[in-house]
């Protein structure tokens, strides 16, 4: 047994992953820090990503983080390529992504490309499942991803530099500079990321039956995040956050392609600017956020042969959302809280087909008013009621409501029972309505009836902390919007389906010490059954395409002195690529194993970190999307330096 453990300790890494050093020092003992949850969080089904995980993955993007450490299903076109997330068997457009409280999903296609969101730019990642997402926003028929940044008033002066290099021409440079003095905090983060992405994969799609290199998959991304905060008084505080990310990505063809020289490229730019003002009094607080969410995407596909270059597609998408939100919270008593917000968003979006000289240019306004009452009835029972009315372009939308209840049958015995239910609404995206060809002006909003119930048990025994949470969920979605292929390759949008999603999620964790080694084991498993229930549909009762029934992951973290390590497993079950449940249309399941190791050198109050990371060490040849090649075994090595000078601690 000791030998086996020793082997595991050797092959398993020691580390917090590439780039971890850019986060504040994170030690395992901080992982299970618990604090009394606020009354406004009671009963909701929320999962926050541990700070140690954020530190471990700060060199990656949000899609990789969520694939490895959550129940979410990530649909990815490959390293650096378009990646979207779906909760509980719903579609990617049913996942709302909030950045510091504002929805950053593109109003055109209703999704956020998670590969554009570096974990390095985020201090807190929380997942709101099912109707609990209404605590943040509407439209999350699956759920909501909330990304937040917050000031560290005691940071002093900090400077962190990190350089990572890896397989397939991968380089990542990161810089973080922080400064706090008296009432003022400033934080600046920069990154530059590029890769040739010319990995070798086994070509079993074109008849070659040999390893070949991926073509036209190189990319580079860069971005910055600037935050400034100022304490106006002991009760007032103001801040400004500006984030921008640029990406220039070549897109590889599908594996079976053998055609003429092909060039497919996508350029993205995301700019988010948010100003905030907060006022606190003894029993109330008032906050106002105003900002601009701007997205642009240019896409081109050409083929070249001796006869010339032929443009197949050349399109541009641009959108600007001027978003405003006023929040008011009043605590009648410490156990009775009323929260209200009003949101007013003005959207301007344009789609241009430069080849066909077509497109659309639309404006949209939406106003949302939401109120929720939260109450701790007694130490064992708490709950909430929530209601929202949405107005889109001056037209009232169907009413939105939710309720939740949390019970602790035995106080301080670690057992919590939780249930939520709600009616949610997702309005069609602008492309759903206006895209040409295929957009449908007559689309109705999708209506979801969501419910979940779960039990959580936390216990410490013999210095080992154990946590288990099991949740069952269900959702019925009417008027599901589906883009389906039509004749001559044109796709069209329709309210074609009723969809029934149900399943279970299991989240478990163990943490303890073995002598001088601190260890932690965490795992997630989700079973999802999502079927088309449209009575006249030939695929009634069948699982929707690209929704895996099984998703699981497991992580082991080890730490000994200045060494730390992690081992991570991820399994995505098979997915159907057709609306019939036949093995002939199944993408095989895949299993990935990653290792990381690291060593920290303390130099006075500064630190030097060395990191090594091995991904897909079993060298699995797999596809997330049919005939889209994925990289096999690869490595990353990183070095970072943290300079720290404390200020007004």
């Amino acid at each position: 047994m000791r030998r086996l453990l020793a082997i595991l300790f050797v092959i398993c890494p020691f580390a917090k992953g590439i780039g971890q050093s850019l986060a504040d020092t994170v030690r395992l003992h901080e992982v299970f820090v618990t604090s009394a949850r606020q009354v406004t969080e009671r009963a909701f089904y929320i999962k926050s990503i541990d700070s140690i995980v954020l530190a471990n993955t700060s060199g990656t993007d949000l899609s990789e983080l969520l694939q490895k450490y959550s129940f979410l299903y990530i649909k990815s076109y490959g390293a650096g390529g378009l990646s979207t997330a779906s909760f509980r068997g719903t579609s990617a457009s049913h996942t709302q992504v909030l950045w510091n409280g504002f929805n950053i999903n593109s109003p055109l296609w209703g999704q956020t490309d998670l590969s554009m969101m570096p974990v390095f730019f985020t201090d807190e990642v929380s997942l709101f499942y099912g109707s609990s997402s209404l605590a943040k926003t509407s439209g999350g028929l699956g759920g909501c991803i909330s990304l937040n940044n917050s000031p560290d008033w005691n940071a002093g002066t900090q400077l962190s530099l990190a350089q990572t290099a890896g397989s397939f021409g991968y380089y990542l440079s990161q810089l973080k500079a922080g400064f706090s003095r008296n009432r003022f905090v400033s934080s600046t983060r920069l990154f530059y990321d590029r890769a040739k992405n010319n990995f070798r994969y086994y070509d079993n799609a074109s008849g070659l039956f040999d390893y070949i290199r991926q073509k036209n998959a190189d990319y580079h991304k860069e971005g910055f995040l600037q935050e400034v905060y100022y304490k106006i008084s002991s009760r007032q505080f103001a801040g400004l956050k500006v984030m921008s990310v640029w990406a220039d990505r070549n897109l590889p063809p599908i594996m079976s392609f053998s055609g003429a020289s092909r060039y497919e490229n996508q350029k993205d730019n995301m700019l988010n600017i948010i100003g905030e003002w907060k006022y606190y009094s003894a029993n109330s607080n008032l906050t106002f956020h105003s900002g601009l969410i701007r997205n642009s995407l240019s896409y081109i596909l050409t083929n070249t042969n001796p006869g010339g270059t032929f443009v197949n597609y050349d399109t541009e998408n641009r959108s600007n959302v001027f978003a405003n939100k006023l929040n008011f919270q009043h605590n009648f008593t410490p156990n009775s809280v009323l929260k209200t917000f009003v949101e007013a968003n003005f959207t301007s979006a344009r789609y241009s087909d430069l080849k066909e000289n077509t497109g659309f240019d639309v404006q949209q306004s939406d106003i949302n008013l939401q109120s929720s009452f939260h109450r701790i009835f007694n130490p064992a029972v708490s709950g909430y009621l929530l209601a929202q009315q949405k107005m889109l372009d001056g037209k009232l939308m169907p009413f939105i409501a939710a309720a939740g209840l949390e019970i602790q049958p035995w106080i301080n015995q670690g057992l919590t029972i939780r249930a939520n239910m709600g009616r949610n609404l997702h309005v069609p995206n602008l492309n759903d309505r206006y895209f040409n060809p295929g957009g449908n002006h007559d689309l109705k909003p999708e209506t979801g009836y969501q419910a979940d119930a779960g039990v959580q048990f936390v216990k410490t025994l013999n210095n080992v902390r154990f946590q288990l949470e099991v949740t069952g969920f269900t959702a019925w979605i009417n008027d599901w919007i589906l883009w389906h292929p039509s004749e001559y390759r044109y796709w069209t949008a329709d309210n074609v389906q009723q969809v029934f999603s149900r399943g279970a999620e299991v989240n478990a964790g163990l943490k303890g010490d073995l002598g001088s080694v601190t260890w932690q084991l965490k795992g997630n498993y989700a079973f999802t059954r999502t079927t088309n229930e449209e009575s006249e549909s030939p695929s009634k009762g069948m699982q929707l395409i690209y929704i895996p029934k099984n998703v699981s992951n497991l992580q082991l973290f080890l730490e000994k002195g200045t060494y730390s390590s992690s081992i991570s497993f991820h399994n995505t079950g098979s997915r159907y690529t057709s609306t019939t449940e036949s093995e002939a249309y199944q993408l095989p399941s895949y299993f990935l194993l990653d290792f990381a190791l690291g060593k920290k050198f303390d130099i006075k109050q500064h630190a030097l970190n060395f990191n090594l990371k091995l991904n897909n060490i079993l060298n699995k040849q797999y596809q997330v999307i049919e005939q889209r090649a994925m990289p096999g075994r690869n490595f990353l090595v990183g070095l970072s330096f943290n300079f720290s000078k404390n200020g007004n601690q």
Partner: protein
Amino acid sequence: MVISKNKYKVNLSTVEGWLSLLLVFLLFPFSSCEDEAPLKQFQVNEGVFILNEGNYTYGNAALSFYNPDKKELTNRIFKNTNGFPIGDVLQSMTIADSLAYLVVNNSGKILAISINTFKHKGTISGLVSPRQMLVLSASKAYVSDLYDKSVSIVNPQTYTKTGSIPLGKSSEAMLKWGNYVFVTNWSKQNTLQRIDIATDKFVDSMVVTKQPNSMVLDKNNKIWVLSDGGLASLPGGKVKACLTRIDPETFKIEKEFVFPDLNAAPTRLCMNNGKDSLYFLNGSWGSSVSNGGVYRMSVSDLALPASPWIPESGKLFYALGVDPRNGNVYVSDAVDYMQPGWVYRYSREAVLLDSFKTDIIPSAFCFKYQKL
């Protein structure tokens, strides 16, 4: 894998023991590679190939073979024989001698297979967006293209592209008559072009109704061109569809049969072996029209049929073929475009003979007979 019981004994009385057992348990089932499905061998005589184009960008095209005498259907014959998929959007198929050429549109290639064993013989690669292949001799064939404004010249024996014929427009259906190949310019275009086979040069063109998608030659040596009229949401909008009869000798329009319903978008013009009856599908883009279905008319008729020969009846007709041996009609139902479609076989009297499920979007039929 053999594990020595003593050497690797796990002590389950400790947390470490449980942890180790859990990791081994999780690692083991996933450490092996997936096995490829064993290849199959086929030897067939007569029947019909059914092309299933699959979904654009999904790479799930497939080929089926049906023997109507034995009522035997075999799906996925290409992948099961050769161990790799056809590719993305199987557009059309041409048989020449013992080989069949599969035109794979969004994979930019043409796969050559044996028509008897389905074994892969070669690949013509480097094409832009191939649509149809017309074999002119043992060493020369033309390939039309959706984006390339040239017709490619390929050698079917060596599987190489040998040249191209600039047309200034994209191309679709092709038909040989005399020393010329007639080419329709479909995508958002409205012309019919002529190419001189001897010189491989563009000769001239004429205007027809918008988006000529298919073309046949009748027993009177007249060319029939079916135009769908375009799509309302694309530049230029939709015009009424039209069936046009052209004299290839004079290269002039003889008669136009205009469809009365603006929404009608007829496709898949084909002909029986006697070349005296025309068949086509009348539907709409992505949905059905009130009188959708399979239409049949004689080449001597003076007007379009008022009602369908085989009504669509809630199905989504997508492909059409006429058996050259007996005049039986094959029509496919693409269902919802996302699951395996159905093929219906009708007699010459429009009596349903049988039906069977093939693969994703059955899109064309190609008949294989020794002698007719």
